[in-house]
């Protein structure tokens, strides 16, 4: 019962703030609504029993990536006067139509998938550790070591790329 109330409240907040992100005129307010959205998504992860992911979501997404967005928005806003966002070439109706098609399609796949006979849960390999953090750490360093190393290479490349792009002269 309490879980249902928590889920509906968090889901309403997530969707509400997402709509506000997409529709606010002022870019800084948009970024702030995005931060709130990510905090509520982290709360949803706690509800799902993934508390390590929730802490990582706040640390990396809300505390790192969105700070980056906020910096860029402020640097871009420094010289631009606040201008109206009405744009004569904006294809609002086409956007909504396509989005509606996407929603119907994804929802249909989800509901069709769940009307099939339930899959047997794939039993995870017998793990010598319990607890969410230890389990993820065990998987990352044994079964998924190669994707882990590739992800760190990707982050290194992204770091170098961002530095090269942001320098004024090479």
């Amino acid at each position, binding site marked *: 019962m309490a879980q249902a109330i928590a889920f509906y409240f968090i889901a309403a907040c997530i969707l509400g703030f997402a709509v506000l992100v997409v529709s606010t005129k*002022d870019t*800084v*307010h948009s970024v*702030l609504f995005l*931060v709130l959205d990510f*905090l509520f998504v982290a709360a949803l992860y706690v509800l799902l029993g993934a*508390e*390590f992911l*929730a*802490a*990582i979501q*706040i*640390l990396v997404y*809300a*505390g*790192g990536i969105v*700070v980056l967005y*906020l*910096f860029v928005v*402020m640097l871009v806003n*420094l010289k631009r006067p606040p201008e109206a966002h009405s744009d004569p070439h904006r294809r609002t109706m086409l956007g909504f139509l396509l989005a509606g098609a996407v929603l119907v399609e994804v929802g249909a796949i989800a509901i069709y998938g769940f009307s099939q006979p339930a899959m047997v849960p794939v039993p995870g390999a017998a793990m010598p550790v319990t*607890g*969410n*953090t230890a389990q993820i750490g065990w998987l990352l360093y044994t079964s998924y070591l190669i994707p882990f190393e590739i992800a760190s290479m990707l982050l290194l490349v992204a770091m170098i790329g961002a530095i090269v792009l942001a320098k004024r002269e090479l």
Partner: protein
Amino acid sequence: MIDTLVIPLLKIVIVLNATLVAVTYMVLLERKVIAWAQSRLGPMRVGPYGILQPVADAIKLMIKEDITPVRADKWVFTAAPIISMVPALIVYAVIPFGPEVRLFGRQVTLYITDINVGLLFIVSVASVGVYGIILAGYASNSKYPLLASLRASAQLISYEVAVTLTLVSVIMMAGSLSMVSIVRAQESQRMWYAFAQPLAFAIFFIGGLAETNRAPFDMPEAEQELTGGFHTEYSGMRFALFFLAEYANMIVVSSVATTLFLGGWLRPFPNVAFLSFLDFVPSWTWFLLKSFFFLYVFIWIRATLPRYRYDQLMRLGWKVLIPLAIANLVVTGIVKVMLL
């Protein structure tokens, strides 16, 4: 019902009130200690030896006129001090002041809660505190606060990396992320982690100084630089909230350093039977003593050291502390595997 709802609420009320009183008296403590370091007396007028000075400060700040700059973003301007203060207070939910004690016939734990990702929770909540500074500078709609806030937030996110890497070394030694488990690991391994990981301790302390914008890293908010930093346009109670948030952050860093490196509530030298008379001192008193020691060192350093220039500050964070923290991490990992 009582155990799950009433007792945690009581603990929250006690901890919050104690923190807010401690934060206001930190202002007085800092003025007094810096004054004594400079061979003068500090505030002495209000109350005996100046004890009631924080009350006078609070009244003065509350009756000041509340000015909002023209064309400033009103909602963000109001929210920025709150966003600065709240993460500093939320962290107290996981800091352990002591183990279980027997109070009024019940087993009561001396911490509000103990989640199994406690240390990660502290780090992530601290990284949300950066928003208060960025938004304060932006919402003031004025050049100097904006530049100062960008500097301050760049400093904060740079030193966050070094501090988090040192915390990983502590986690490796303790084998758990939960704060209570780290203290118990220090108890069972019979060594405070300040002696097992001196480099991590030093880096954590220096990083903590930079994270809380304290001297010698207080360039973003010094009065001589950039006309007062990111809280230039704030007056009255909102300005007070920024100040209180800074002192609350200082107390949080002290508490976390005590728990991780100085053994939390443990008494010194537990296996020396000669000192067993020290067992009469309750556990939370040890915790408070150690935290106050850290706070005193914070103020001592402010009274003694000159300020870092901004490029020296960033060079220290990126080119010195992060490589040292990574080296410490690698050495800890190797030693732990070899001495398994």
